[in-house]
């Protein structure tokens, strides 16, 4: 979908053709869900937050001034909505998804891909939500630093430094998790 066709859809939605909005939802739902999931660490909540963000975006579509990309504007709403959900549920128990570390025999850089991803998710969960989101967006390789900064509400330079530090912190957290696993063997 080109920028022009996207603007055409937006114009149609603004003119009252509500059904056309489904095209935008279909296009951006996976990234929106990924962002919400990285912040909330819970699929059900992430789905709700992402849906709410799309509804908010729909109702504020006239406020999208087309200076930035629609996706950046939308993901910023997703990010803020997910952060609001996170604050609302701050005192609830952590989901099982973030707390369970399963048994594995491999320990030092020799994990198979499935285990690696699982431990990596546990290490990611140790970072704060902004770093986690910035890091995810960085590795998705779809976003420039300016866009990541726009979505997470930081300056581009700050985003660069935070992503850099988060990558190192992630490696350190992963090392700690693997060490703990090795001790339980």
């Amino acid at each position, binding site marked *: 979908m080109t920028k022009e066709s996207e603007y055409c859809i937006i114009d149609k939605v603004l003119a009252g053709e509500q059904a056309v909005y489904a095209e935008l939802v279909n296009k951006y739902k996976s990234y929106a869900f990924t962002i919400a999931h990285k912040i909330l660490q819970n699929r059900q909540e992430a789905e709700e937050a992402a849906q709410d963000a799309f*509804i908010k975006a729909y109702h504020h579509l006239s406020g999208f001034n087309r200076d930035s990309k629609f996706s950046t504007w939308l993901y910023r709403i997703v990010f803020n909505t997910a952060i609001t959900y996170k604050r609302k549920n701050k005192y609830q128990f952590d989901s099982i998804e973030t707390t369970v570390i399963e048994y594995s025999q491999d320990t030092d850089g020799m994990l198979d891909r499935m285990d690696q991803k699982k431990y990596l998710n546990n290490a990611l969960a140790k970072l704060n939500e902004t770093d986690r989101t910035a890091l995810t967006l960085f*590795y998705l390789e779809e976003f420039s630093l300016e866009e990541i900064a726009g979505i997470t509400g930081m300056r581009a330079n700050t985003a660069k430094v935070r992503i850099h530090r988060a990558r190192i912190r992630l490696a350190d957290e992963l*090392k700690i998790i693997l060490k703990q696993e090795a001790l339980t063997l």
Partner: protein
Amino acid sequence: MEKIPQSLDDKILRYLDGELNTAEGLAFEEELNQNDSLKKRLDQLQDIHLTMRGKMIEHPSKNFTQAVMRKLDQYPVQARSFSIRNGILLLSGVLVAVGIASILVSAGVFDNLNTTIDLNQVELPKKYFERSLPSIPFSGKVIVNIIIILNLGLAWLVLDRAILKPLFQRRLQGDH
């Protein structure tokens, strides 16, 4: 494994991101051959790099779009922290408090509440204050008047945010 200095961590990340020029890259690879700790750290960061890259995208449930389209007219999505009813109650409370305070002020209840606060009476170490400190006049009537003005401001804010704004939003949605 010895601790890798942050400057080397930085260099590894720049190497992984392809930000080192040819000469820097070759020098770094040479360094890698001579330093086992550095090599291990590179492997760790590279593992993360490969696992994370391009594989982080997640997909919502199949009926995601339908759910959004079904709920498009339900706005605002988040429950307002303040319903219109609660807004009216708060506004009434603030106005009653302002009314009572105004009646008491006009009846002269606070007229006799005049005093001065003498800072010299406060026991402070003399070595810090060589000169005598000023006295501050305190008028109960002025303080209550300030409170009334602040309450009127609050009442205006409550009227705008908790009553008028949601009311107009609801009316707008009704028009759609």
